[in-house]
């Protein structure tokens, strides 16, 4: 586990640099076991920084989420670097953002956090409901140790681990300037059996499954907004000219929304799982993204977010691409 003192020390050094304007990390949340993003602009703020298995957010999203309202005449944009803490999965978002030319590598100071897994907060809160006061979660071997209200509980990690971590291929950041801990060896494999299982159902069963999920959608767009790869200036979902899908919230438009969202992430989703995590009505969005991920890997031997030198999947082709369904 990351040494919290070292983390703060590194953060202090980084934010003290003249060429760094902002450091994005984590701090404890407002209640219970939660942790939340922290935006550090001065050395005084580093004391609140933490990294624990409760640090679920993918902070890479904030690199592309920043709004740029019109600058007053004569004002110069602050082009100094942004420092960001990333876990293995999050780091792939940085790579993919760079593949898509969101910024140059030297715009960033990357604080890499080799990660042995974060919790699924819903599982934690279901297991320990009603905890208001600040609780802590640390990893000890194969267990999570939770301390709250003067008590300490040990829970086997597998019971609280986020699903994405149970199949994490890249626990150690693929890009980093300062690695905050020793490299974590790959501890899980991903065979996409969850997707294969769904694929094996009949079309009727599949539609029944998805119709149920999509009908719950309230189109809050949290899945889109939290996604580190969704950062168009003007999303087609918001456009009125033309209307790609209507604002109506019904099974047809909701389905169209989910098809569009998932398709736009084909060959781009880096499996941080944020969309599924934030969905208030528990739509298993990663099962959509992972279908594309699985097909893209099988058909084109392509995994996004691994190399900044990669060509975007759908901006390229091979003459040999499979076409067995084409008449």
């Amino acid at each position, binding site marked *: 586990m990351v040494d919290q003192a070292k983390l703060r020390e590194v953060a202090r050094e980084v934010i003290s640099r003249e060429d760094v304007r902002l450091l994005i990390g984590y701090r404890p949340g407002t209640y219970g076991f939660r942790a939340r993003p922290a935006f550090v602009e001065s050395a005084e703020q580093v004391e609140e920084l933490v990294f624990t298995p409760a640090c679920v957010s993918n902070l890479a999203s904030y690199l592309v989420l920043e709004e740029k309202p019109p600058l007053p005449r004569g004002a110069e944009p602050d082009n100094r670097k942004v420092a960001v803490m990333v876990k293995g999965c999050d780091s792939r978002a940085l790579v993919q953002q760079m593949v*898509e030319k969101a910024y140059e590598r030297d715009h960033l100071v990357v604080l890499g956090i080799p990660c042995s897994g974060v919790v699924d907060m819903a599982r934690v809160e279901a297991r320990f409901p009603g905890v208001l006061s600040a609780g802590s979660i640390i990893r000890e071997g194969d267990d999570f140790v939770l301390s709250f209200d003067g008590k300490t509980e040990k829970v086997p990690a597998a019971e609280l681990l986020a699903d994405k971590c149970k199949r994490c291929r890249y626990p150690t950041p693929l890009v980093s300037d300062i690695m905050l801990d020793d490299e974590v060896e790959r501890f899980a494999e991903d065979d996409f059996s969850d997707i294969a299982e769904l694929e094996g159902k009949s079309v009727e069963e599949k539609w029944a499954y998805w119709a149920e999920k999509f009908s719950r959608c309230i189109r809050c767009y949290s899945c889109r907004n939290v996604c580190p790869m969704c950062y*168009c200036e*003007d999303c087609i979902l918001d456009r009125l000219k033309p209307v790609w899908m209507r604002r109506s919230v019904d099974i047809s438009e909701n389905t169209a929304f989910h098809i569009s969202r998932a398709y736009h992430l084909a060959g781009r989703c880096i499996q941080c799982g944020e969309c599924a995590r934030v969905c208030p009505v528990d739509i298993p969005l990663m099962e959509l993204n992972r279908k594309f991920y699985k097909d893209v890997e099988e058909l084109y031997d392509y995994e996004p977010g691994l190399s900044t030198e990669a*060509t975007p999947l759908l901006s390229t082709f091979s003459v040999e691409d499979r076409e067995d369904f084409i008449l």
Partner: protein
Amino acid sequence: MNARPKIGVYICHCGINIAATVDVEEVVRFASTLPDVVVARNYSYMCSDPGQALITEDIQNMGLNRVVVASCSPRMHEPTFRKTLMSVGLNPYFLEMANIREQCSWVHEDRIAATEKAKRLVESAVVKVRRLEPLEVKEVEVEPSCLIIGAGIAGIQAALDIADAGFKVYLVEKTPSVGGHMAQLDKTFPTLDCSACILTPKMVDVANHPNIELLTYSQVEEISGYVGNFDVKVRKKSRFVDVSKCTGCGACAEACRQAGRIPSEFDEGLGMRSCIYLPFPQAVPAKYTIDKETCLFLTRGKCGDSPKCVEACEAGAIDFEMKDEMLEFKVGTIIVATGFDVFDARNKPEYGYGTYPEVVTALEFERLVSASGPYGGKVVIPQRGKKKKKKEGEEEEAPRVPKNITFIQCVGSRDKSVGNEYCSRVCCMYTAKQAHLAKDKIPDAEITIFYMDVRAFGKGYEEFYDRVRREGIRYIRGNPSEIFRRGDKLVVRAEDTLTATPMEHETDMVVLSVGLMPRSDRREIIDLLKLSSSPDQFYLEAHPKLRPVDTATDGIFLAGACQGPKDIPDAVGQAKGAASAAMILMASGKVKVEAQTSVVDEATCRGCGFCVEICPYSAIELVEVNRMGWPVKVARVNEALCKGCGACAAACLSGSIQQRSFRDLQILPQIEVLGVSD
């Protein structure tokens, strides 16, 4: 542009072509109910002058600002109606066509269903035209030069015409000499002109013409750009002979250790050459070439103590260190004149070609009967595989002169079993000519021709065919099933279909009238120029009747047999046509470029570069712009390079790059209309 759309819908009967299947009146009634449709009319032929006048009058009198024509395919008359709009000052891109003929009335039988479909297609056109925008047709300069690929008779003729008109020509030929297949022929039908006599002067002309840069033994490697501005890369293959020094004396070929051992391509392998060679005596340029596939020095690094050719060459022209040379130049137009291959008779094994030396192909027969050929113009049974050059003192075995010669037509033509459905157009006549020549050389020979039909359609052809028949040549209607040996004779088994008599015909020699095939290396050109092929695998013209020398790509034209089998007059005629088409562009000096190009909304582009990566024409680049004080990268389109495919538009996640006339805003309403089930 922002004026409220006032749409006129014009529905064509096309005589009964549309009206017989589609209830035109009903479509008019329906169209007139659609939003923004001010007028809907029908007329027997919208494309006729009075039909077009209906449109122009309505535009002028009713203030229409959008027009839908429901008629034939836009591929047919879109240009016509665009001009109609333009003639009264309306932007030509305010037109949308509904294809209710080719894709409706001609393919459906049920009147009700066809009418319903026509209504939907019209509605789809209406919703699209409502959202169309005026486009500006821009012009680019045309480089006054032409690349011609292939220097057979078609390429030569096109080159001479263009060069004579004062434009620069780059004539690229793959082999060491110009001339192509025509140079191999002895006489030409029906006039019996000596092929070399009429061709050679033109060959010399292309070599000497001040406007022609002749690049023999060269290959086009890369072509990029667009009409008027093609960038060409040509590989000038090394001849290992310095052409500026070579006098063409031939001493080197005489001296070559392999002299007389290498089959001559020009003589169809019946004659032999050296590794260093001139393809044929009249070759242009008259410069020797070392064949690096067979040259001992080049393949093994050793040729005796030293290469004999080097010793023999007084001019010191041979240079084994010579490298391929890359040339780069710009042209405005391109003519493809790559010609044909002949059918490989081994693909009809029942005729025994390759097994029996007495079975020859027609092209081999041309070489036999040619005075410059390997047998000095004697019609004999060639001695295949035997070295012509005998050792001193050894007795020459004289080649056998056939007394009975049989020709078989349509070998590899009109034959589905070998995948060639088409007629090769030249075989009937060259067979008649060859029969005549054989009779001329061996007056007492018995000559028989097996045929399916005789097609003597050209000027003077029927007369020639008649003349040959009267010379005592026997025509038997029947397609032989096999050829086999019996003693020292060959037996042709066939059925005389006119008398329904099975027969076995004994003969000394068989000549197979092989057909013309698309070149085996046609893929190279297809990949270079993105040409399409027709089902017979010859290159596809833009329109079989009205644009026979054009290709789908502006500025690229076809000449000669690469487009389909042709005899010499047709090839020359088409070459002149292609030359003229190219010269129109070069003479006007300007050409209109695609108006339906892509355009970027820089306010929403996020600069991801997907479109840049995807554009096959490198027409898009990322540039830095100032967005409300912030420097951001956005895509920008070079409209002269953009060909309007729209691949970028489908790749853009935010819809920030759009193809004009095919914007999402214009296509989505079409989908909405067409998607609705009736």
